[in-house]
Each structure stands twice: as C-alpha cells, then as structure tokens.
C-alpha cells in the first residue's frame, strides 16, 4: 500500500505558516478563505505556557495544524535528544495532527547547537546512520514522520549519489514521508548546477505528504533560502510539475523574514491555489 494511503494522510489544501504577527488576523478577524490550514514551528510551542500556547489552542479549534520542526538534528552524529522527543511528543499529542515534519539535515555538532539546517553528504554512511534514527523518532512520537529536503550552499566531495537518490533510499528504508520543498530544490539546483526537474521526477511521489513553497534571495554567486519574498516564477513552474506527479497534496507557503501583512500572504496562498488547480486540471 502507498504511504499516503496507508497512513490516511489528508490533502489539506493550501496553508501558510502561522506567525505571532498574524495572530489577530487569523484568530480574531477570521483568517482568509484562501488559507485552509496552518503550520507551526514546533520548537516555538515547546514551552511552559502563556500567550503562544493559548493561541495554538485557539488555532487548533478552527483549523488543521501541522507541527514542523527545525531543531531535531536527525542527521547529527550525536545521540538523539530524548528530552526533545518527549517534549515534541507532548506537543504532537496536544495538536493531534495527521503527521509531523522536520528536516533532513544536522543542526548539532561537537556539543553546539548551530541553529541551521546543515546539509548531509549523499553517502551510504549517511543512509545507514539516518534510517534507524528516523524509525526511532517515528515510533516514539507515534505519528507518521516526514522529512524535508533542505537548501544547500555546499556540496561534498564524498557524495556518492544525487540528493534525490539519497532521499528516496532513506524514505523507503525508514518508511517515512517526504516534505518536498520545491523552492529548496530550485535553490540547491542553482547552487550546485543540477537539473531541478530531475530532482522532482526522482522523488517517490506517493511518499510526498506535503509541498513547501517560499521566496529566496539572489546573492550574486549563489541563491539563499530566505523565505523573505514572493515565490519566484521558476518555482511556481516546478511546483506545477511536482503536484502533477504527486496528485493533490497539502501545500504550504512559507514567509519568515520581512513578514508581510496577512493579506499579502493570503494572496500568495491564493496564487498557490490557482497554480495547483491549473496543474491538477
């Protein structure tokens, strides 16, 4: 049975990241007809109490909410942080989402938390390291787990395969889902000179539980994944290609830097809806 079917992963439509700046627009002014669901950054809600948790409770009462982590550090050589997992489990239980997500990367090294989504080499060693850890996380949290491809600004001499081959093999062996970030594919393709369409075509479509869209910044010699702007035309094209392969899956528009007014974000969500409908027609 296919992954999405087996785990009854729903198509939630188009969502956006829920940010404190938009709390009034969403919780008091009714949000937008173009935004069907919200994603939260898990770690921001792994706190004792206060306004954030109250907002989350109110958000949950009206919308589907997907927790998206940025700090699990699944690819680090250090032991998985069991305290982190316990706190994540508590949050996931409170939200009861159909799945939860994080990134295929490492964030910790030598006892430091570098607070970045650092790329892994595309090696057999990485696969052997990651698979049991992903299985452990999935079993601990007791929900389907999906990992996102990250944007990268460096490539390793030691890599033995393409990024999409790495992701596919990990997802199959660990039996986890994939959060396909189309903007990250575009950014990494530019930075490393590979064909973005081959990446999109090389991912096992049935394992994609969600797609991410965002804006990036041209730094002259490389693209930086800043989430600070509108989605670029080339990324919309890739999105259409991706969603034609996957069929209708939940799609999220991310905007985390220079966060605009809620209506600007809602318009971007409406645009995503239009592209999605066009592609699926």
């Amino acid at each position, binding site marked *: 049975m296919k992954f999405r079917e087996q785990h009854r992963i729903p198509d939630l439509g188009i969502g956006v990241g829920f940010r404190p700046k938009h709390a009034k627009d969403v919780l008091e002014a009714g949000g937008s007809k173009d935004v069907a669901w919200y994603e939260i950054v898990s770690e921001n809600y792994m706190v004792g109490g206060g306004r954030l948790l109250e907002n989350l409770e109110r958000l949950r009462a009206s919308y589907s909410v997907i927790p998206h982590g940025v700090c699990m550090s699944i690819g680090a050589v250090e032991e998985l942080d069991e305290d982190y997992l316990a706190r994540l489990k508590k949050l996931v239980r409170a939200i009861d989402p159909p799945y939860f997500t994080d990134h295929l990367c490492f964030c910790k090294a030598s006892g430091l938390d570098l607070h970045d989504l650092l790329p892994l080499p595309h090696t057999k060693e990485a696969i052997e390291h990651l698979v049991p850890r992903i299985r452990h996380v999935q079993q601990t949290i007791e929900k389907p787990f999906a990992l996102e491809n990250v944007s990268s600004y460096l490539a390793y001499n*030691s890599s033995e395969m393409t990024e999409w081959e790495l992701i596919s093999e990990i997802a199959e062996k660990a039996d986890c889902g994939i959060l396909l970030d189309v903007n990250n594919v575009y950014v990494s393709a530019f930075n490393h000179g590979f064909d973005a369409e081959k990446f999109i075509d090389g991912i096992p479509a049935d394992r994609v539980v969600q797609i991410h869209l965002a804006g990036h910044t041209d730094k002259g010699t490389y693209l930086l994944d800043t989430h600070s702007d509108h989605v670029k035309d080339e990324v919309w094209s890739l999105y259409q290609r991706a969603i034609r392969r996957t069929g209708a899956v939940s799609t999220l528009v991310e905007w985390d830097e220079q966060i605009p007014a809620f209506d600007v974000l809602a318009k971007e969500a409406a645009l995503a809806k239009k592209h999605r409908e066009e592609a699926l027609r």
Partner: protein
Amino acid sequence: MKLHDLQKTFAEALVLPKSFAEDAKWRARGETAFTGNDRVTPIGQLDIYREQFWIRHVNCLREDFPVLVALVGDEKFEAIVRDYLEVFPPKKFQLRHLGENLADFLATRDDQLLADLARVEWAFIDAFDAPDAQPLDPSSISAISEDDWPNARLVLHPSLQLLRLAHPANEMRDAWWSDKDKRPIERAERKPTHVVVFRHKDLLLYTEVMETLPFEMLSLLASGKSLGAAGDDLAASSGRGEEIESSIGSWFTRWSGLGWISRVVL
C-alpha cells in the same frame, strides 16, 4: 570525509568570528571536503554557513534585547554579542535560550547598567512563556488555622521574575517601549531598585516596583522558606521585625490580588 569529522569541521568553522576564505589552512581543508563550483570556492561554500551563523544569532539577540541595542548602538551591540557567544556558544536547541547568560556576562564587565538592562529584558522573555498556574483559590486558605500559618509555604506563579537591580533599568525599558518615535535612550542614574516582572491572567506582562522589605520577604518565600522562617530571617537581617509582622497581611493580599500566589502548602 566521514560524517563525524565533517560535522566537527562545521562546529569548528561556524563559530569563527571572521571569514576564513583566504586562510591557507582552511582553504586546504575546504578543498578536501567540498566541491566548490565556478562561482564559489570550496571553502567559500562553508564560509556562507559561517556568515549565516553570525547573522542569525546576532539578529536573534537584537530581537530579544531591543532596548540594550537602542542604548549602546548597533555596532557595539554586535561586538558584545560576538564576545558573549565566544564565552557562551549556543548549546540549546531553542534560540529562545540564546540570551539567557547575557546579563551575567555583562556583569563581568565595567558597565553595570548594561547588565541591569539585560536582566530586565530577559525577565520579560522568561515571564512570557513560563508555565501557567491557577491563581490562589481563597477557599483553600480558609481552612488553615492561625497556628499553622508560620509553617505555610507559598507556591508562587512560575512567571514571577524577581530582579534586584543597581539601576532602575525597568524605567529605561518602559520609556523606550512607550516612545513611538524611538528617540535615543537616556542612561539611568545608579539607584538600587527592586522589580517584579510577571504575567497576569490576561497573559500580558507587567512590572511592579517594590520596597526593599516586601521584596526581600518575597525572595525568601520564593526560595522555599516558610512564612515563619522567612519572617524570622528578614527580621534578623533588617532589624524591622515589628514592621514585618504588621505588614505581612497586606503584602499577602496585594500579592494574591496580582496573581503572584498560586497555592499555600503546609
């Protein structure tokens, strides 16, 4: 390069304060590990992550300490953060904790006003997302007999931050936040100040400036001492036993009215 060595290289490289793209040793290491391309050298690729490490962490603390930034200026603040992170590199997964040692770090330097200001700004961060607790249920204390009160311990609301300051840095913070034009901030003169930062049941954050005696009593109670023991200790250290005895009832009423007391336990 194996995963372990590669990740160790990141930890070593990202915390370096200056670009290593022109450093011969690092260039050699970069060529061993990274591919580079026709636009960015192998070590230049790693340097992108180093640059982002500093931008991310400096910006995070800028957001958490905006009044401190307003007082010292952007450039000096960045220099402070760079020195701070050398002593206290990030070790917790939530960026929210990054500035938790900044006040202590600043206290080791010359300008104590900066430490006080950092202490006040950090208290707001801690109070904002501290665990919730129910306010005191009056019926729960009606059963406590007069004889038992000296043995009673107060459980305070987890958001309470008790600040013992050498300057009224709380006034600087209030002035900056209430000034729509964000004009340059004035330094406060030295004046011992006791402040409580707390989250009310409306989930908003407030400050309460306190006299020395009730503040010291509250501090003793927060440390876990019973009412009787705290009163005795404070009477011995202040020589104001009668004042404490006559005021404790009104202090209790005020504190429970502000939602500072969650429970009374025997």
